[in-house]
């Protein structure tokens, strides 16, 4: 129902039991270990960081990489909503002690394959680069070693401007004792081979230079370019074949991925324990652990510790002044899923208030008002619990699904009031947002007022609990009077039949509220009554934030309306289709399902986030004290599976 009371736990035990004790504590997941301060007098000293730690971290990183590498080849069927397997503590231990060397060999093999693949990739890139450079010279009809000037001839091999070369060849101005052979054109460049007699060489060179001649040096030493290219092609094919084989070899290891995942979690859990040892102090034969434990767990822990290490000494104390224990929320099973919404904002401080239970009905109600289609609500209410039963999703997913199911319940109620069933309105509605919007808007603002007053109520409750009843009257009751009075004053706009006596009462309530605020708002700032009055006036300006807070609840109307009207529009459009004859139903029915799934999806998402916003900004703004640090006990890692003993399963 609230924030769990924490106790300071101190444990001194023989060093030989350290591992066993830490295992118990880890399995019970009940101690948030805090670093112990070194104290010269006690003879306790900080433990050296375990030498194993870098090794374990390295192994974990490699394991993680290997899992990611082969996971995609794993063909075993996975559960739809990702329920994780459960393994026992013994199995975890067996994995670490027995299977680890074998699995790590697999990791090594995978790493070797990856290295080889990387090497092949760079070799292929090199070959490709050479190939690309040589490709224009494929047509060269003589071996490379023969391209050289002789006693009487000079050879030119290179590129020039394509257009200039074409002009040169067509113009017939080449010297007589010369021959130019164009091998290929690469975009704007022309690759050519030219021979000239020594007498004509200078003339030809001049003409070629005018065409932009750049000499080219081929990266082949001897033989025909075409033959060389063929060789290169073959090499590329071999590389590709080997790459293919590497993929297959890698995929063959996929059968081991399940065990690797389990090993990862087992090892990571061991690593957690190692990490914690850095927070411990130790003497020659004992170690000293300090941390926070939820008060209800103390007895159970004491019993378990006694079993493992009878000579261990454990003590529990209340938190001292100035200490900030971590925050752990605990609520009844109905409200528990909604904790994720609170922690999604920020955890309340240890001395604050856990708003989960108070928030729950509002959250589900607002979701219902915004989804506002009874048909969607029914589907959510029925399908989601069935999915939870059948698929056994992970706790996080399950919580989210229960929240949606709860929203579904209220959606049915509000959908029935708005009279929207899958976008149809089968009978006269109680609220008609389309035809007569004003009453619906009134209800939305009214809901908002109740929500905000509940927030004020929580703040007042906290003030009273802390022995400050006067603050509750000055800071909360006053605003309650003022806002409620103002609401009563404007009521006749919505419901004309209200008797003047009630509005007069509202007037006096508002005035009383104003008076209290004027007198008390500055009470902590100054003793000077004039200055206090000014502070009071400043505080009254806060009324504007109340107006914007209240108007913010208009989104309940807007979002609700949007769902209904989009559904209605879909139905009308599909209705036109079905008017075309019975055959059209073949298209219309799937279209109907798709359109409404789309509408439901987009509106459930919208309703969820807007409902969150109303809690975070409007509701929490009235009382919330955040800044709690989460209770993070020493526990097992469950990235891929849960490590749990049969006796612990609940």
């Amino acid at each position, binding site marked *: 129902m609230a924030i769990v009371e924490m106790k300071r736990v101190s444990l001194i035990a023989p060093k030989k039991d350290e591992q066993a004790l830490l295992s118990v504590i880890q399995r019970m997941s009940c101690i948030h270990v805090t670093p112990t301060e070194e104290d010269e007098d006690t003879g306790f000293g900080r433990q050296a960081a375990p030498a194993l730690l870098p090794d374990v971290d390295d192994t974990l990183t490699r394991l993680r990489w290997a899992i990611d590498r082969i996971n995609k080849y794993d063909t075993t069927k996975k559960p739809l909503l990702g329920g994780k397997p459960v393994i026992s503590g013994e199995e975890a231990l067996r994995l670490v002690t027995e299977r680890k060397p074998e699995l790590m060999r697999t990791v090594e093999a995978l790493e070797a394959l990856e290295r080889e693949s990387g090497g092949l990739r760079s070799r292929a890139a090199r070959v490709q680069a050479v190939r690309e450079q040589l490709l224009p010279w494929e047509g060269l009809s003589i071996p490379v070693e023969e391209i050289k000037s002789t006693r009487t001839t000079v050879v030119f091999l290179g590129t020039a401007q394509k257009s200039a070369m074409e002009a040169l060849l067509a113009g017939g101005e080449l010297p007589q004792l010369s021959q130019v052979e164009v091998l290929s054109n690469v975009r704007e460049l022309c690759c050519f081979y030219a021979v000239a007699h020594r007498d004509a060489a200078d003339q030809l060179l001049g003409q070629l230079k005018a065409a932009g001649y750049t000499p080219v040096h081929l990266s082949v030493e001897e033989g025909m370019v075409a033959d060389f290219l063929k060789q290169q092609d073959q090499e590329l094919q071999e590389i590709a074949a080997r790459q293919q084989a590497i993929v297959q070899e890698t995929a063959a290891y996929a059968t081991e991925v399940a065990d690797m995942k389990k090993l990862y979690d087992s090892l990571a859990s061991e690593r957690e324990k190692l990490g914690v040892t850095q927070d411990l102090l130790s003497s020659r034969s004992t170690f000293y652990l300090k941390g926070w434990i939820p008060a209800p767990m103390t007895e159970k822990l004491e019993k378990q510790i006694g079993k493992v290490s009878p000579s261990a000494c454990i003590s529990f104390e209340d938190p001292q002044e100035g200490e900030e224990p971590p925050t752990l929320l605990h609520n009844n099973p109905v409200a528990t899923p909604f904790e994720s919404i609170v922690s*999604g*904002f920020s955890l309340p401080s240890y001395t604050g208030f856990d708003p989960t239970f108070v928030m729950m009905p509002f959250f589900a109600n607002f979701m219902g008002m915004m989804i506002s289609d009874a048909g969607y609500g029914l589907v959510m209410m029925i399908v989601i619990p069935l999915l939870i039963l059948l698929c056994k999703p992970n706790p996080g997913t399950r919580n989210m699904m229960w929240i949606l199911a709860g929203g579904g319940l209220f959606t049915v109620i509000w959908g029935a009031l708005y009279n929207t069933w899958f976008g149809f309105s089968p009978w006269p509605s109680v609220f008609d947002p*389309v*035809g007569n*919007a004003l009453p619906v808007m009134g209800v939305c603002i009214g809901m908002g007022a109740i929500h905000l007053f509940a927030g004020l109520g929580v703040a007042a409750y906290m003030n009273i609990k802390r022995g400050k009843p006067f603050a509750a009257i000055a800071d909360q009751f006053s605003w309650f009077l003022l806002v409620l009075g103002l609401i009563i004053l404007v009521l006749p706009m919505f419901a004309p039949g209200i008797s003047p006596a009630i509005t007069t009462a509202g007037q006096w309530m508002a005035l009383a509220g104003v008076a209290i605020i004027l007198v008390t708002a500055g009470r902590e700032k100054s003793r000077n009554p004039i200055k206090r009055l000014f502070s009071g006036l400043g505080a009254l300006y806060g009324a504007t934030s109340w107006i914007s807070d209240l108007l*913010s609840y*208009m*989104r309940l*109307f*807007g*979002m609700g*309306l*949007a769902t209904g*009207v*989009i559904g209605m*529009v879909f139905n*009308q459009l599909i209705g*036109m289709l079905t008017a075309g004859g019975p055959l059209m139903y073949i298209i219309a029915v799937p279209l109907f399902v798709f359109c409404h799934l789309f509408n439901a999806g*987009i509106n459930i*998402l*919208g309703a969820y*986030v*807007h409902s*969150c*916003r109303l809690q*975070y*900004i409007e509701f929490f703004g009235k009382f919330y004290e955040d800044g709690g640090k989460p209770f993070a006990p020493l526990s097992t890692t469950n990235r891929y599976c849960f490590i749990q003993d049969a006796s612990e399963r609940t």
Partner: protein
Amino acid sequence: MSMGQILALFGAALAVILSGIGSSKGVGLSGETAAGVSTENPEVNSKLLVLQLLPATQGIYGFLVAVIVLINTGVLGGTMLPVSLEQGLAIVASCLPVGVVGLYSAIRQGKVAAASMIMTGQRPEMSGKGITMTVMVETYAVLALLVSFLAVNSIKLG
């Protein structure tokens, strides 16, 4: 076709076009960011899709108002009802809030969504806060939708 009828259609067009431009821009720019963040951190992809969807609603709101105009003027019924010049102008005026606010808010929302995606990519546990921040912008689109809707519905044709 009378001037009033043309104005009514013009109003419906404005609602769809302006908010549609806004949503296209918003969803587009957040989608680009989503693609970028996904290459760095593929695991958060589904969270990014939620963020990318948020600026899409403005376009839907505009579409909604436009269809209401089409229904009220009888276009969807087959024969368009007579619309006076004043009524036509009133319809244009009613369509403006959802169009203009939709245009601007969808783009701004898309930018917040993109920033939230980058945050989510680096700190996936913050995705809830990112979504909340992005939804803050949506408020004004919802208010504009409300006003447009109430105004369009108050124009009685017949």
